[in-house]
Structures are given as structure tokens and as C-alpha cells.
């Protein structure tokens, strides 16, 4: 007997993984949470049937969401992470000794519970003393903060579910407010290869651009995400991700990374033409 997990990446495109066994399967107040063990990609977390992380390629996503802003400003001390219940983003952050506190706001406790039990590869640092987990709506949490964080990472689900509020203008405005004067915001920015996501991505970028003086988009290759081509949004009140890259200082930290390096950092902001057109960006 063969057991396959399939994600509908679009109405007409399916992405399938052969499953060894199911490790976790529960409905929370917010979404359906499952962890499966797959032959090729190792353990994988799915929310409402959508693939979130797999053991085999999670390093790409987590490297890129964390090290790009960290190499731009090495003085980051206070970080807010929104979403990220799998713990991968927090794990990468904890590698920086200079970071003093990491507030993580995850709406769904069940995601954290499932990952702590079955995805130790990403969830291993959630008990770090610098990490404080708040089980709350991200939009609500950030609304109450003012000039508190050096960095906000939005590691959310798609804009069509519990993560919906994290792609809105009010959220970006609230983030702006919650960041210190030189703060940086990085968010997962979806992909635009498939038509269904184009509008949401364009709107998100437009709204970030209206809110922050510096707003750029960068890319990574993540095999298990729809189309394999994924985008991140970088926004800041002060730091330009290319001009302010601290290449030598970051390399001097000696952090071993599997995907990120400072050459890639400089390259990842160069986007394919079709994406540039969608973003309406000039060279």
C-alpha cells in the first residue's frame, strides 16, 4: 500500500510526497495541524493541508528570513517574531549571542505543541531563556507596542487563513510603530509564479512601500513551496539591505550556514524580470 500527501498548489497543480506515517493530526481552534513523516523530505508540518516546513528544505527559508536582516544590522538586540510556531526562525536567531530577547507571537498553541513533540529539528530552541512565547493574534500584539523592537520577522501562513491579518496595511503600519527608529521588518512574501497569488503579493508590497521608506523584495529557492521560487519582503526605516550589509563583520562571526552567505545576500535582491514587472520596480 502506498500513502501519498498532496497539496493543491493551485486548483490544477498538485504537489505530492510519499508518506511513511502520520505523526500528528488534530484540529485546533484555528486550523488543522498535521505532521507527517515522508520518504524524501523527512518530517513535514502541514496547516490546513498546506505544507509549511519539511526537515529537508527548511534551512533555506529560515536562513533567508533571519540572516539577511541580521547581516544588515549586527546591533539587533530585541526581536519580535510573528507566527513561526515550528521554531525554525527562532532557532536561527538564537545563534546570535548579541540578541537579548526574542518575543514570539504565535496564534495557535497546538502548532508549537505538535512541533515540540515531532519536529525537534526546528523546535529545538523554543526553550532558550531569551525566548518568550505569546499565544496571541499577531495584529493585536503588535498594535500595543511602540518603538520596542530592532527587528520584526513575519513568518506567517498564506494570506488566506489565520495569517490574513498579517498581510494588511494596518499590520504594516502597526509594525512600523512597534519598531525602533532604525528597525527592520522582514516578512514571507509569497510567490508570484502562479496567478492566484500575484494580487496578494503585489498588494502586500504596495502596502509595505507606502509604510516604510526602504522596501525591497528578495528571493530564495525552496523546493517544497509552490513553484519552488519564494519571495521575502525587506523593509526598514533606516538600513538599506545592500549598502549596509556588514559583510566582513558577519563572516567574522563564523556562523556556519547551509544556504545563506554574504555573496548570496547581494545576489538575492536581483529579481527575475516577470517579478520586477509585477512589483512595478525599475532597475
Amino acid at each position, binding site marked *: 500500500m502506498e500513502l501519498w500527501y498532496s497539496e493543491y498548489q493551485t486548483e490544477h497543480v498538485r504537489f505530492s510526497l510519499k508518506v511513511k506515517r502520520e505523526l500528528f493530526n488534530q484540529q485546533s481552534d484555528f486550523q488543522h495541524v498535521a505532521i507527517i513523516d515522508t520518504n524524501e523530505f523527512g518530517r513535514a508540518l502541514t496547516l490546513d493541508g498546506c505544507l509549511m516546513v519539511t526537515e529537508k528544505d527548511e534551512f533555506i527559508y529560515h536562513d533567508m528570513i533571519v540572516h539577511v536582516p541580521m547581516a544588515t544590522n549586527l546591533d539587533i538586540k530585541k526581536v519580535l517574531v510573528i507566527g513561526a510556531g515550528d521554531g525554525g526562525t527562532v532557532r536561527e536567531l538564537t545563534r546570535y549571542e548579541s540578541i537579548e530577547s526574542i518575543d514570539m507571537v504565535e496564534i495557535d498553541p497546538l502548532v508549537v505543541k505538535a512541533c515540540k513533540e515531532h519536529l525537534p529539528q526546528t523546535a529545538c530552541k523554543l526553550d532558550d531563556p531569551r525566548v518568550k512565547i505569546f499565544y496571541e*493574534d499577531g*495584529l493585536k500584539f503588535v*498594535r500595543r507596542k511602540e518603538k520596542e523592537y530592532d527587528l520584526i520577522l513575519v513568518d506567517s501562513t498564506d494570506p488566506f487563513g489565520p495569517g490574513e*491579518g498579517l498581510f*494588511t*496595511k*494596518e499590520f504594516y*503600519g502597526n509594525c512600523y510603530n512597534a519598531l525602533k527608529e532604525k528597525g527592520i521588518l522582514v516578512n514571507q512574501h509569497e510567490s508570484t509564479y502562479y496567478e492566484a497569488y500575484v494580487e496578494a503579493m503585489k498588494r502586500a508590497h504596495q502596502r509595505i512601500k507606502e509604510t516604510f521608506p526602504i522596501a525591497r523584495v528578495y528571493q530564495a529557492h525552496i523546493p517544497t513551496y509552490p513553484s519552488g521560487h519564494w519571495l521575502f519582503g525587506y523593509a526598514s526605516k533606516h538600513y538599506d539591505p545592500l549598502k549596509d550589509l556588514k559583510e566582513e563583520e558577519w563572516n567574522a562571526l563564523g556562523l556556519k550556514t547551509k544556504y545563506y552567505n554574504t555573496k548570496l545576500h547581494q545576489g538575492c535582491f536581483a529579481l527575475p524580470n516577470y517579478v520586477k514587472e509585477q512589483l512595478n520596480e525599475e532597475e
Partner: protein
Amino acid sequence: MKYTQQNAPIYEALLKHKKNRVVPFDVPGHKGGRGIPELTEFLGADCLKVDVNSMKPLDNLIHPVSVIKAAEELAAEAFGANAAFFMVGGTTAAVQAMIMSTCKAGDKIIMPRNVHRSSINALVVCGAVPVYVNPGVSHRLGIPLGMSVSDIEAAILRNPDAKAILVNNPTYYGICSNLKEIVKLAHGHGIKVLVDEAHGAHFYFGEQMPVNAMAAGADMAAVSMHKTGGSLTQSSFLLCQNDIEPGYIRQIINLTQTTSASYLLLSSLDIARKHMHLNGREIVAKTLELAEYARAEINKTGGYYAFSSELIDGDTVFDFDRTKLSVHTAEIGLAGVEVYDLLRDEYGIQVEFGDMGNLLAVISAGDRSFEIERLISALSEIKRIYGKDKVGMLNHEYIDPEVAVTPQEAFYDAKKSVLLKDGIGHISGEFVMCYPPGIPILAPGERITKDIIEYIIYAKEKGSSLTGPQDMAVEHINIIDF
């Protein structure tokens, strides 16, 4: 067959009809949607299949004898009324049926001036004469309140021949009058009490709600089931009790009601009544919880004032519907309608309406906390980005109208179109109102004053959507005395 509140007779008959696969050689011509694939694709085949005409097993709204009759009886029971009528022309039709069944041409009807246009429309149709009672006004918020019992008593003493009194309860903002006392007073003078309960369908099902019209002893009530009761837009209930004769009401309704009532609307009323009867208590409790949370958070933002039961004063604010989320915006230097526009254009959030100083968001059991958080956050952002000092806000006064001729006479009289400012001192031949809320600034037969014209111009500047006049741009107004 004996039906209980667990049943929905029209819905059940439609299910049976669908199962029977009757061959349709009657209207509608789309024949279960086959005739118009694009619409079927859009609305869904299941929906089109029950868009059917009246027929023997489905009864007829014009003269109900079977399933519609049963459904109306269940509705009457659920609302504590003697009789209930399914309305498919909106609450507008229900309000008009109330007025037309109690007033004939020349009869007087006492009403607050801040009634919905549907009430004054009814006067245009039937020729009744309005006797206006000033609603109370909150100067701080710039909104009309409920009617004071002593003002009503004075109006009754001046007009002992009045046939009916119309109360809008609750108002759009959620403000309730002292309905029980008004009923006692009116009945003491042989006057019928009609309640425009468009915004109060949930009063019949929730706990800790203001008193509903039937419980207060009113004679008739128009209840927008589609607003807070969950049925489809345009569907509504008309309720009556005491010595109102249901057969006569049916005749009045049939004067203007369609003979092809939509079974989509009828079944939605039927199912919504069942749903509210069975689950209304939890639904209203959830709505209340969301509204109270949003109110507290918005008030914490500062600048905004999401008002509630602290307004209660025992008279013009006798009670308050706490499921309503009304927010006073003028203190952040923005008109309610400006915040309304920003919410929609910049934040993708549609609220019910914005007037000069306030906006109203409708909260219901369909809301989730995510959406509530978005609204709160967007309001706090609007304050941060667009907020300014409170300057140049027109302090809206209730404009007391002089009724020069009846609405009917003015409406049908010969008219001349003049520039707004040239209309001052003349008698208006038409309505002017902001929509929503659809409360006339000016009604046919009323004298046009400088205050009224200034208010119209101010409302236009602030971006209110003005409706009513023949001149769609609202630069001219029709007068009848020239």
C-alpha cells in the same frame, strides 16, 4: 402536519420539491438554471434549482394556506406575536404596510423626524399627515436619540385625533426609547403603536437585550430579519398583535407586494427563524462579546469614543443595544464618513455607514476575532496617520422641520428646479438624504432653510453619498411654490 420550531416548512417543502424532479413547464424560464449557465456557475446549481414559482406544494405568499401559512405561524410564535408576515420587499415594505394599514389619506401619524425614508415614502403613497416629534439629540456625539415620553404626550394632546405613532426602535446607532411607556400612553388615547424595528431582530432572541416591540405591547413591528437575523438581503418580517386584524394587513401588503415572491428569500426567512430560535441566545451572546471587546479596545486607542450603555438617561436614551459598534470620530479631527472612506479605500474594510461625527460597524455572529482585530488596528492607524485637531467640524444640530404641506401633496405637485441656495425659504418637492443611514435631511412638503442647505453642502464636501433629488449631482433642488 404538526410543525414545531424545529421545522422550517418552506425549506422542507423545497427539499421535497427538488427530490421529486418535477418537470417545469412554468416560470422562471431559466428552468433550474439550465437556461443560463453563467448565472448557475456563479450562484450555484443548488440555488437556481430552488428559485421556483409558487405552486401547490409550495403555497403562495399572496394567500397562504399550507407551508407558508405554517411558516408564518411558527414565526409568530417565535417572535411572540399574534401573526407574522413574510415580507420580500425589504423592511421598507413592512414599514409601509404598517402605516398604510393604520392611516388613510388625511389621517395624522406621530413620528420622530429621524425616521427612515421608507416611512415618509409611505406617507407619499397613502396621504397621511406627519406630526413630527423632535428626537432627543446628543450634542457631544451629534446624533439623534430616542423620543422622550413627555414630548410624545404633548404631541398626542395637541393631536388627539392621531391614528398611530411610529417609533424607530432601536435607532441605527442602537438607541432605544421607553417603548413600554409609549405603548401605555398611546393606547390610553386609542392610538396604535407601530415600531420600525429594522435594527432589532436580535432583541427577540438574545439575553440582556432591550425590550422588543411585541413584548412591549406594540401593535405592529417591522423586523429586518436580514440585518441581524441571518436571512437574505431584502427579506423581512412584519409582526402584529392586539386587535390588529391579520386578514386586512394581508390585503394591504398585497396592494404593493410582488405576486412572484422569491423562494430564496422565503426559505431564508424560514431557516433564519428556526436558526435564531434554536441558537439565537448563543449567537447574540457571541456578538455582544465581540462588540464589547472591540469597544473597549477602540476606547483604549484614545481619541475615538465607542459609546455604549453609559449614555442611558432614562428618557431619550432609555436603553442601548450593546451589539452595535458605534464610534464617535470627531475628536480625532475626522468626520465619520471620512474614516468610513479611509477604512474602505486604504484598508479594505467596509463598515455600515459614516455620518458627520460617527461611524457604525455591524458586528454579528459571522465575525471572527481576526476581523475585529483588523478593524481596531486600522482605526488606530487612521488616527496615527490622518488624525488631526478637532477643527472645523460642523456641530450638527437636529433641524426642526416646518411641514408646509403633506408629503403626498408636495410630491405630486408641479415643481421647478432651482440652485440649492435659491431654494432657501421655499417648499421642497423632494427628499434629500445621506445614504446610509437614509434618514431624510429634507422631505417633500418641508420648508427649506439656510441651515438645511448648509448641512447638505457640508455633507457633500465631506464625501457623504447624497440621494433623493431628481438632480443626481444634488446641485439643484425641486421646489413647489414658485
